[in-house]
């Protein structure tokens, strides 16, 4: 996959090869990282420029901070990414999304891609199942929106079709088999674009989090609950999905069955008031504008009236 970092087995993290190394890990996996023979840093501010290797173990948020630190403060540092959950694809993406004073800043540069990535399968065990399901929705969104993107090349679509076939066979739970296709899907969609699912998620996650701080709203949960309605919209609006699925021998029924399984009507219902209020912003979002079917003012009712059901 283009731009995907080199994959290294976990037991290939040899202290002698890596030189002066620091390990930065998210809180939920700190017990496990004691097994690795490296000094740890408690947070990003403890890292010194010029470090030879930084190993980051965590989700997208911590990984993006580490990527940005390396990019701005220590560009010669080797960055090795070990995801603690799939979905964001931060371990293979040229994007870093940073929260600064409540404001989201997005940086895109090929130099943000980690040098290497590892899969640590046992980390999946500590992921709560509902969170894992949402992460599966994020992965599905990257794969399908990248595949359908008007900017995708024929070669990229072929690569994403392989990933989509693999996802179709995976259970929507905390199964470590998700780590690899998630990283690949993200690396691939970075070569094309995402679409309306991401336009909705980017627009709604901040307002929903602010309105319901205890509800745990996040990007992945929105992706998981909107990928089915959006894919039904795409399929209804033009023949692109049907034609491409046929050409790449994708099992359309199996794909849509998975997407339906990801959708929780009670969660979806909680977003509708905000979606209605924020629709003009959704239309302006850059991801919405590269959706495979044209999204218009009138599309709002597709979601509010649940026309996909």
């Amino acid at each position, binding site marked *: 996959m283009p731009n995907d970092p080199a994959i290294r087995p976990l037991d290939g993290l040899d202290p002698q090869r890596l030189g002066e190394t620091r390990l930065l890990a998210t809180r939920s996996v700190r017990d496990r990282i004691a097994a690795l023979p490296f000094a740890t840093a408690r947070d990003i501010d403890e890292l010194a420029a010029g470090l030879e290797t930084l190993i980051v173990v965590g989700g997208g948020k911590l990984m993006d901070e580490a990527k940005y630190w390396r990019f701005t403060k220590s560009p010669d540092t080797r960055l090795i990414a070990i995801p603690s959950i799939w979905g964001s694809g931060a371990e293979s993406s040229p994007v870093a999304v940073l929260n600064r004073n409540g404001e989201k800043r997005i940086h895109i540069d090929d130099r943000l891609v980690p040098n290497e990535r590892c899969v640590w399968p046992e980390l999946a065990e500590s992921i709560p199942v509902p969170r894992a399901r949402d992460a599966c929705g994020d992965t599905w969104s990257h794969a399908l929106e990248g595949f359908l993107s*008007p900017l995708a090349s024929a070669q990229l679509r072929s690569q994403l079709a392989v990933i989509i076939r693999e996802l179709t066979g995976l259970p929507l739970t905390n199964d470590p088999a998700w780590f690899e296709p998630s990283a690949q899907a993200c690396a691939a969609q970075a070569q094309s674009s995402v679409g309306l699912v991401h336009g909705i998620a980017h627009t709604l996650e901040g307002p929903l989090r602010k309105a319901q701080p205890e509800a745990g709203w996040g990007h992945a949960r929105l992706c998981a609950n909107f990928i089915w309605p959006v894919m039904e919209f795409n399929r209804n*609006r033009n023949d692109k999905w049907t034609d491409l699925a046929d050409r790449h021998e994708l099992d359309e029924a199996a794909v849509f069955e998975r997407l339906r399984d990801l959708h929780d009507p009670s969660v979806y219902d909680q977003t509708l008031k905000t979606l209605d209020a924020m629709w003009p912003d959704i239309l302006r979002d850059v991801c919405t504008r590269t959706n495979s079917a*044209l999204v218009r003012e009138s599309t709002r009712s597709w979601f509010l009236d649940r026309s996909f059901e």
Partner: protein
Amino acid sequence: MTNREKLRELLLDILLLDPSEFHFDLKRDEVETWDSMSVVAIAVGVDEDFGYHFSPEEAMAITGVADIMSTLESKGISFAE
């Protein structure tokens, strides 16, 4: 709905224009929202509404509404009033 009306509705939606801002001589550089993402959306919308798929070269060469109409007219889609 005539093809002229269909195109007008399409561009109002994509470029997020007020109806009073639209005219058929509108140029890309006169519209702040007519950026590269809108070029992609116009290609998708023209495909859906007129059944013609712009090549990337055709899409990038569009400098205004008149270019869209002349390309589509060359494919047999009439915009006669």
